[in-house]
């Protein structure tokens, strides 16, 4: 345990030193290191991708139009990067008269990333948070593979790229792994008991393509953990989007999209047959100069069996978030978001969340993150449980 803490402390110290080095063109994570580029080439406020980064990702982690110059992992600097954040967090939970606080200086995990081109048309990305035991000052994390996918791209047509393995599927129009805030998009976190929300990475296979502003994605996934392995890939989704104006809708261009999802799952309890549930999403990412508005609306329809015995009817729920962000300079970005989830009528629970925050970049890969968020669970009871979170962290990638 001690060794681990020392290693972690060493990692953080080294990362801070590296990030603060006066030479601004040095310490950069895996892709940046490979190409000798700054983080801001692909990120507008890391971890959020800008349009350039989005094209790079869509092209299978290869620079569009320069694929034949692409170097493989063997020819590039070792393809590893680390990301860690640490800082002070204050949390308060209130439920009626009861209130609890939790606060302190914490290490918020450590991600090991590896990515690169394996062969022409084949690349990979892996994110591995090593196992950390919960202890004072260190937030525990399971040592599971969060993402590990292989991408086959440029297969003769811009309409055919294939991603397989564990990855963040394209139905999450706004990446949960690369969003500006720490607090979750509530509607992406929402699901029936045991169900898999949009925010989770999934195992499966996805085909994507785009040309002239139009893009599509479709995939088959293992889906909810309540499936049995014998059920085979059980979930399917499709997404279409278009961009008006130059860009990918990340920080330039206006993007609108629509997503449909059909999943199959079993209730947590009871041996019912597979139940089919569905999701419909509409999203928009609008840009005006340095301001971005990201909005997602999502509607879910689940058979009553999936929600458990209290449900007499099928459950319909919906919700949205709208996030406004403003990046007046490369060094800073501010954001504000409103989240709303209208839960199924039967459980009479709605969620609202208000979030505001900002990130200041001392260096491309070192950010000071400030965020405040209040989540309220609207229940029939008179006192609604609330959760407040305020945090100041350093977020480092190297």
């Amino acid at each position, binding site marked *: 345990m001690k*060794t681990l803490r020392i290693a972690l402390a060493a990692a953080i110290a080294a990362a801070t030193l590296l990030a603060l080095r006066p030479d601004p063109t040095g310490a950069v994570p895996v892709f940046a290191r490979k190409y000798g580029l700054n983080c801001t080439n692909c990120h507008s406020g890391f971890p959020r991708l800008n349009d350039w980064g989005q094209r790079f990702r869509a092209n299978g982690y290869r620079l569009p139009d320069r694929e034949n110059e692409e170097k493989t992992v063997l020819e590039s600097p070792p393809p590893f990067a680390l990301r860690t954040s640490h800082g002070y967090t204050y949390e308060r939970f209130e439920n009626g008269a009861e209130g609890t606080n939790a606060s302190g200086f914490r290490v918020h995990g450590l991600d090991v990333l590896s990515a690169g081109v394996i062969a022409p048309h084949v690349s990979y990305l892996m994110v591995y948070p090593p196992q950390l035991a919960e202890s004072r000052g260190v937030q525990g994390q399971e040592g599971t593979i969060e993402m590990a996918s292989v991408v086959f791209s440029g297969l003769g047509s811009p309409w055919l790229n294939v991603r397989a393995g564990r990855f963040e599927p394209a139905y999450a129009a706004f990446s949960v792994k690369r969003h500006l805030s720490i607090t979750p998009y509530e509607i992406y976190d929402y699901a029936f008991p045991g169900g898999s929300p949009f925010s989770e990475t999934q195992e499966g296979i996805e085909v994507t393509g785009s040309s002239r502003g139009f893009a599509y994605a479709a995939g088959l996934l293992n889906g909810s953990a309540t499936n049995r392995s014998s059920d085979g890939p059980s979930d399917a989704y499709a997404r279409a989007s278009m961009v008006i104006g130059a860009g990918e809708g990340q920080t330039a261009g206006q993007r609108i999209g629509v997503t449909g999802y059909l999943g199959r799952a079993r209730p947590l309890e009871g041996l019912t047959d597979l139940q089919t549930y569905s999701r419909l999403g509409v999203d928009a990412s609008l840009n005006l100069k340095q301001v971005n508005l990201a909005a997602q609306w999502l509607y879910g329809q689940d058979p009553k069996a999936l929600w458990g015995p209290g449900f007499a009817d099928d459950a319909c729920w919906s919700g949205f978030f709208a996030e406004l962000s403003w990046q007046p300079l490369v060094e800073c970005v501010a954001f504000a978001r409103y989240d709303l989830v209208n839960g199924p009528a039967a459980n009479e629970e709605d969620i609202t969340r208000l979030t505001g925050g900002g990130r200041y970049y001392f260096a491309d890969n070192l950010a000071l993150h400030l965020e405040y968020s209040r989540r309220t669970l609207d229940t029939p009871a008179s006192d609604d449980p609330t959760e407040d979170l305020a945090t100041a962290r350093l977020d480092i990638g190297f």
Partner: protein
Amino acid sequence: MKGRWAASLLAMILVSLTLTWSTGALGQFLANGPLPPVPVPPDNPQTDAKVRLGAQLYFDTRLSADNTISCATCHAPKTGWSNPHPTDTGIRGQVGGRNSGTILNAAYMRVQFWDGRAATLEEQAVGPIHNPIEMGETLENVVRKLNGIPGYRAQFNTVFGTDANPDGIAKAIAAFERTVVTGPAPYDRWLAGEKSAMTPAAVRGMNLFNGKGHCSPCHSGPAFSDQGYHNIGAGMDRKDPDLGREVVTKDPRDRGRFKTPGLRNCALTPPYLHTGSEKTLADVIAYYDRGGIANPNLDPLMLPLNLTSREKADLVAFLEALTGTQPNITPPALPEAGPAQEGGSR
């Protein structure tokens, strides 16, 4: 327990490795470091006599059909070895289609001309002479004229062991051009550790150049050119756009692609782009900020940048910090026309 040991070991190894890697510039894009020594082809070694001869030819209007135009007319030292016109006016006032490149550091480019149609300075050098709208002369005539000037004839014989011929003309001019290179720019001094060499605005501009502006993937290497061809959209909104590289390769994928020009000394060579359509560096930045001009072949890396006005100014400040110390070259005395000269015009 084992897992934890492995995890901490992994973390340790990664930290130490990362420390080592990130100190070296290992990126795929060559770092924009200082200029190396000028590359010289083995079949045309530099000699003082050859360079002197090349300089005379460069400044001599007698290489043109009507004795009015020399290389220096369009590539004048005073105007950054280029000229201030959007496109050039050659012999008899004819206007060409493209902005003239600069001779400054042309020796570092792997290909010459906007469309790369000449591979070497040697190959390039005789082109303008017999270009009907540049100097409009035939090579035969130029050779005859030069051999009629005793001073030239003697020099050609000393340098090449023969009378003037197209090969010798090309080699001498190319050798001279290899001396038209610039010394360290404020950027180079900054890189070398002189932190006051660049203003804070220029340093911010450098970070934008390598980051939010996405300039460095194309403008990479010591000369700030990837030596490749890209369609950034310039002129593509015209009725009859210049097809650029496609003219040379006949490949429609090369439509509207032009050679990435080096950016050292670009502050000295307005106007900009092959069209000469952008009058100032600020205009070029504004052009990039808009994401270029849309066309089916636009480079996928061309995107609107959402630069603020401070960021635009910072980028200009950085480009201005790329102006190096200028070569100290004054037009040489030219050999007198000899008795045997046949006259310049036809």
